[in-house]
């Protein structure tokens, strides 16, 4: 660091100190985040995480310095994930929580030409506030079924105008902006996160919450079934256990045609239903 400017040394010093004082160190890409959303994001991070945007080279130096001072070579692996306009995010949140939090903090943003669509872009059916003009022709040229209705442009049906990954053209960006459709997402893009000797990548961190909910339900049903089927009573299952025993007894009695107060209705009813169904098969002159 022979010819390094004094402010850079200080910056590296500070970043390294920050890195050393939190268990979870993440790299985020803020290159595509405009200043205003970025300040909003800092606000939402307050109390949960600290974000420092710096030059990539300084971040690299700071990570190396912290790794060396902590005698933690695993931490240095993080350096390989620096790209774009990197920022450092330090937090107590575990990397999965952090990823979830960042995903949930993403905001919709207007279309920009030359940017790939993060997901399928749909122009929804229905009226728009737009007045008739050359735009209608442009829409139709892009396959959007636009018509004039009651003096306004109206879309005839939901239309996918761009598939995920395809590049937004200037014409499409213009139309989407006029329609007020914001197909892009702006937010901190997590590049990697380090905790306890492990570097987590977004592919690992993107957890399918639906799947966890399914597993919870499955686990609960397992416990429920086990408890009821083995007649091991718990507060949650005692009613089901009683019902199972009762219905078992009742069904056996009904099947056996053994009439009790509880089964008289079922048995007579079943016999009658059988008679009724048979009667339906008979010619009319046989019926009373």
């Amino acid at each position, binding site marked *: 660091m022979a010819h390094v400017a004094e402010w850079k040394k200080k910056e590296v010093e500070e970043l390294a100190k920050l890195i050393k004082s939190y268990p979870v160190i993440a790299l985020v890409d803020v290159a595509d985040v405009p200043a205003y959303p970025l300040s909003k994001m800092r606000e939402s991070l307050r109390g949960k995480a600290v974000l420092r945007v710096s030059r990539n080279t300084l971040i690299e130096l700071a990570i190396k310095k912290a790794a060396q001072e902590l005698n933690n070579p695993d931490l240095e692996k993080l350096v390989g994930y620096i790209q774009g306009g990197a920022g450092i995010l330090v937090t107590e949140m575990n990397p999965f929580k952090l990823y979830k939090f960042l995903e949930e903090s993403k905001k919709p943003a207007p279309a920009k030409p030359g940017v790939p669509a993060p997901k399928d872009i749909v122009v929804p059916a229905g009226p728009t506030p737009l007045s008739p003009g050359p735009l209608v022709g442009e829409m139709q040229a892009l396959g959007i079924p636009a018509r004039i209705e009651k003096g306004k442009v109206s879309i005839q049906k939901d239309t996918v105008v761009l598939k995920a990954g395809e590049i937004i053209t200037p014409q499409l960006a213009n139309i989407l902006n006029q329609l007020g459709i914001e197909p892009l997402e702006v937010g901190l893009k997590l590049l990697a996160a380090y905790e306890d000797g492990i570097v987590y990548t977004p592919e690992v961190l993107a957890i399918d919450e639906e799947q966890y909910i399914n597993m919870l339900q499955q686990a609960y049903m397992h416990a429920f079934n086990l408890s009821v089927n083995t007649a091991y009573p718990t507060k949650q299952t005692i009613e089901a256990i009683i019902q199972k025993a009762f219905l078992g007894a009742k069904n056996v009695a009904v099947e056996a045609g053994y009439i009790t107060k509880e089964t*008289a209705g079922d048995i*007579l009813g079943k016999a009658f*239903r059988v008679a*009724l169904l048979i009667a339906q098969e008979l010619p009319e002159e046989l019926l009373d």
Partner: protein
Amino acid sequence: MEYVYAALLLHAAGKEITEENIKAVLQAAGVEVDEARVKALVAALEGVNIDEVIEKAAMPVAVAAAPAA
């Protein structure tokens, strides 16, 4: 179930459901009658309003049949 059908037959014919009557019907059908079952059946049906029970039973068939079609 033959005991139950015997009881319902008597009921439909407007006869009283007695041990004797049930026995007679079952015997006419060639059933070897178990006295205890007859007794138990007659005792169990005491106080049961058969017409009411039957009416309730009749409904679901129609209802359930509809969506199945």
